[in-house]
């Protein structure tokens, strides 16, 4: 066999610090040490355990010192809402209202924790699965639907939202984020750019070139990799032999490996990275270790490649449940509040459905709009010829 499918999985273990410390062999240790955190190689930073226990962490705690139970509850609400929206979107797709939907089930903490760490003047360059990040940026429910319903190639105005239109070409956006961040430095502002991408994306030339440029120009950019273990049907072990967070230090970029199902740890890591960016200390790479619990998109059939046991193990690490447990324990999640959260989620889901079904096909001739900033003679001609063609039918057909 050309390569061993089995041996390669170990490098992508998601176990946290203590659990993994003693298990790596010395060679792994050497190669695996990452940037500013002289931790156990490959270990995953965590603040809230799956059981809902708050774990102290000297490095991360200061970055979320302001997140009291009230604020944690707000993050909880965010996560409940985006999960509800995601479920609604899947339903809309099944009902033929959307052409496609890439579910985020399981990745709520990674997206909410990072999205809520950003400032308004920061700028997001995402892939297609970051609808929860879009939610944190204030994208409307209707706008969220446009691309997937097929009425537009982009859902919102990037400049007013502070988030670029999703990049479907894997990895391309990491370079955009780097260039944007270079621009922030030139402008003398302390805004940062954040690039979201998947584990599969790390194999693309563009992502590695982005690391090169970001390091070379000390660009204030966060490389936020959601390692959800899958690139469609391909396990992360096929893409990389080492934990993804180990890649960046060799480029001169410090990295963090964080429990992507822990909203607090994600927020702490992102804030720390943003702080470096704002201080002029350059880029940071964050690997958020999480799991894609749904299909790749609504067109996918994961039963062909997913092991149900692995799936179940990840369900036990649910990002929402652990915060629920923590808040319940501290008495900050009353039945009343839980109900309020649920109804807000339902209301937004209903708003999304209304927005979606209300989106009509654009007018035929708009196919010619916005190719250039000003219409060219040639396109004006093509458009007018097509208008003449359409007019034939209006008059009763050919």
């Amino acid at each position: 066999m050309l390569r061993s499918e089995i041996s390669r999985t170990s490098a992508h273990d998601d176990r946290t610090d203590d659990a993994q410390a003693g298990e790596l062999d010395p060679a792994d240790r050497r190669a695996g040490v990452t940037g500013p955190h002289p931790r156990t190689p490959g270990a995953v930073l965590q603040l809230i355990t799956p059981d809902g226990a708050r774990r102290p962490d000297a490095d991360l705690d200061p970055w979320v010192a302001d997140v009291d139970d009230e604020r944690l509850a707000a993050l909880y609400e965010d996560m409940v809402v985006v999960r509800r929206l995601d479920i609604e979107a899947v339903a809309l797709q099944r009902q033929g209202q959307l052409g496609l939907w890439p579910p985020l089930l399981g990745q709520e903490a990674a997206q909410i924790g990072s999205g809520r760490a950003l400032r308004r003047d920061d700028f997001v360059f995402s892939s297609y699965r970051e609808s929860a990040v879009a939610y944190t940026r204030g994208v409307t429910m209707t706008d969220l639907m446009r691309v997937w319903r097929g009425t537009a190639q982009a859902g919102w105005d990037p400049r007013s939202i502070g988030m670029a239109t999703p990049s479907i070409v894997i990895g391309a956006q990491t370079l955009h984020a780097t260039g944007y961040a270079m621009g922030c430095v030139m402008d003398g502002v302390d805004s940062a750019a954040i690039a979201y991408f998947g584990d599969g994306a790390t194999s693309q030339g563009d992502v590695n070139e982005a690391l090169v440029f970001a390091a070379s120009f000390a660009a204030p950019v966060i490389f936020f990799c959601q390692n959800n273990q899958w690139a469609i049907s391909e396990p992360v072990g096929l893409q990389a032999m080492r934990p993804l967070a180990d890649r960046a230090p060799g480029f001169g970029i410090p990295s963090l490996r964080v429990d992507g199902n822990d909203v607090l740890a994600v927020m702490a890591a992102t804030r720390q990275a943003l702080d470096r960016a704002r201080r002029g200390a350059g880029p940071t790479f964050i690997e958020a270790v999480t799991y894609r619990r749904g299909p790749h998109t609504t067109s996918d059939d994961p039963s062909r490649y997913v092991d149900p046991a692995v799936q179940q193990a990840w369900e036990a690490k649910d990002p929402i449940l652990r915060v629920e447990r923590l808040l319940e324990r501290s008495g900050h999640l009353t039945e009343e509040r839980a109900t309020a959260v649920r109804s807000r989620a339902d209301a937004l889901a209903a708003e999304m459905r209304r927005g979606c079904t209300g989106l009509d096909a654009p007018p035929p001739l708009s196919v010619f709009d916005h190719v250039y900033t000003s219409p060219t003679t040639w396109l004006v001609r093509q458009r007018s010829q097509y208008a003449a063609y359409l007019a034939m039918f209006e008059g009763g057909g050919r």
Partner: protein
Amino acid sequence: MSERTLAAALNAGLRRALEHDPKVVLMGEDIGRLGGVFRVTDGLQRDFGTERVMDTPLAESAILGTAVGLAYRGYRPVVEIQFDGFIYPAFDQIVAQVAKLHYRTQGAVTMPITVRVPYGGGIGAVEHHSESPEAYFAHTAGLRVVTCSNPQDAHTMLRQAIACDDPVIFFEPKRRYWVKGEVDETLDASTFPMDRARVVVPGDDVTLVAYGPLVTTARDAALAAQDDGISIEVVDLRSLAPLDLETVESSVRRTGRLVVTHEASQHAGLGAEIAASITERCFHHLEAAPARVTGFDVPYPPAKLEEHFLPDLDRILDAVDRVLGRRNSLTGWKA
């Protein structure tokens, strides 16, 4: 002889190639356990193993670049690019390496690489999933570019492409993957070479050249035109580089009229080449300027607008009317 979908015909073609030649290896994203997002490689990894049917990391340039290395070593890589819009990261390896290595080495090194690309629109997809990039490759000397329109051709041409010692960009009309047709796997691949065009509907008044997904549309148009008493000859081009201009030429010499259709944008597309070449060859036989029915010169639009981008039966018939001097959409139109 059995009835198969176009996708299943391709699958059978790959299977035959794997059986036939131990040097054939398949590479691509999700082609293994998943069987490809269109299931064209379904079951092949199971039956031929992970060494001959390789899921690769997610990097198109590397897929092509390692295929070059495998070809150096004597292999015949058959590469899948998941969708048309994702071939561009591999563009450099394709145009600067794959296309040129045989020329560069004066024949010492062959590049028997087949690049399978599901292409074209009409499936209501999101951006980058509906493109027709064939002109980029047809313009690149050293590549063969072919496309199929029916299950039999899909099967036979794919086997011919894999057996060919030149690199072949093999465009698969994704919206026709589920079209069914008779497939004879025993058909001798050499009887009808993949670089020959085929007259699929004979006719006398107008030559209609189509390829890939639009061949079906062109046939439908020919059928519809019959009711109007117009006899259309439909040519399925099959090979886009080199072009079988002889077949088109001999048709146009009879009909005196040419319509070319493709989904790709018009500007510097294949239609221009066919129109220009045929004009060069049959100038004095032409009764009218060749007409092109193509995608517009805009990026591929969102799904809900694609019907206003893609050539369809009515737009083709309108162009047929135009070359026949009949009333058409441009009658009375002023620039």
